[in-house]
């Protein structure tokens, strides 16, 4: 699956789509593929402060549980409630299934993250294929 070029990516396999001061955050297709069938998503609460590189929730598959790291610092403005009853939406289309929306403290912060191309190279190096 292609990684959208208008998103930025983390080495912890989250994506962020920023537009001005607001941004959506999810996990990458590679992340959902490694986890397998996702059965639970632990969401933050609206109003929570999230910090770049810090845990804001978790995703759990049949096989394993994995922390979610925020790609940027900001305040949670919305959470994707649909994922509490249908976490498999992430498996179906990870790049469309956003987990939270945040108001960015510093929109410039996003520029330091990996581009789609960087991320693809990173995944190849990490998995060896």
């Amino acid at each position, binding site marked *: 699956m292609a990684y959208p070029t208008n998103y930025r990516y983390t080495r912890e396999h989250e994506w962020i789509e920023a537009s001005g001061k607001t941004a959506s955050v999810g996990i990458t297709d590679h992340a959902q593929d490694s986890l*397998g*069938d996702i059965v*639970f998503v632990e969401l933050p609460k609206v109003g929570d402060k999230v910090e770049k590189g810090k845990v804001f929730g978790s995703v759990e598959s*049949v096989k394993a*549980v994995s922390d979610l790291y925020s790609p940027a610092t900001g305040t949670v403005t919305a959470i994707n409630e649909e994922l509490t009853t249908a976490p498999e939406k992430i498996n179906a289309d990870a790049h469309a299934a956003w987990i939270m929306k945040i108001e960015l403290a510093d929109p410039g912060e996003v520029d330091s993250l990996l581009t789609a191309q960087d991320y693809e190279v990173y995944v190849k190096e990490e998995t060896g294929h």
Partner: protein
Amino acid sequence: MVDFGGWDMPVEYSGLIAEHMAVRTGVGVFDVSHMGDIQLRGPGSLAAVQHISMNDASRLQVGQAQYSAMLYPEGTFVDDIIVHKLSDNDYLFVINAGTREKDYNWVRSQAHAFGCHVSDYSDYYTQLAIQGPRAQETLQKLTNADLAAVKFYWFTWGTVCGLENTLIARTGYTGEDGFEIYIPSDEATSERVWNEVMEAGKEFGILPCGLGARNTLRLEAALSLYGHEISDSINVFEAGLDRFCKLEKGPFLGSEALTKVQAAGGPERKLVGLEVVERGIARDGYRVLDLSGNAIGYVTSGSPAPFLKKKIALAYVPRAFVEPGTEVAVEIRNNPVKVQVVPLPFYKKPKRASSQS
């Protein structure tokens, strides 16, 4: 792919939940060639089998198999095994991959006093497990053997995919009806049979199943996994496998220690089933706490159960906590999460019209 006892094996093919559900509702096929095969032959073979395994092999008829285990003198596990009586003076042990070399050395060292010949045939066979309520219909298309006549934990010989004298056993590790077949291990033959099984099961929605589904299926059925529920530091009574341990058959490896455990009123800790009531999944190695927060035991296996749609786990806890309904907690990522002791197995296959013993 993961390295599993030296074997490259897929954790999943199309997806763990789909594979799990295929076995519960239709049919799935597993390549379980990593399982080892040890044969004991000769006039002393029954005596040897009786000495090194805890079930009573003298009750077996030719064509019958039994779940059993090899024990250390302490009553703890070398490995759990399936013993097949191929003929008088000829027994086949099917053993685990991770313990193969240890098992073979153990059998050789313990059996040599009995006048029997021990052979490791693990590399000669590809073992395929065809499991699920539609397993019989699937496999019947490929063999002349009358599968309906083979009862649970019995086996027969037949032509499978043109291969004569193939061992076909009604056994498995899924808690479901199914068969395990033992075919020559050369790649071309293995691949051909695999493809023919897939084709035969197509109309029943057959899926190839990986290690992930194998684990969740056996966990729903509360079947033990070496290194988790059973090990060299866990004894038979702790693991709740009493019904496969026949102390009355006479002395065998481990029987003396187990008799003492029994005389002392049973084990201090026991394996129980847990169901997570609140949010979270209790995973292998997590601590079990009492309601005051004291550590009392640990989880041996835990996962969401795809068919039961519950979050289940197996755990060792002290005797005072084994009653179904007892509330304890599991420490899940630093939070105590409430769980309830539930009866085992979590899943039991529905009784079917074609009755099996």
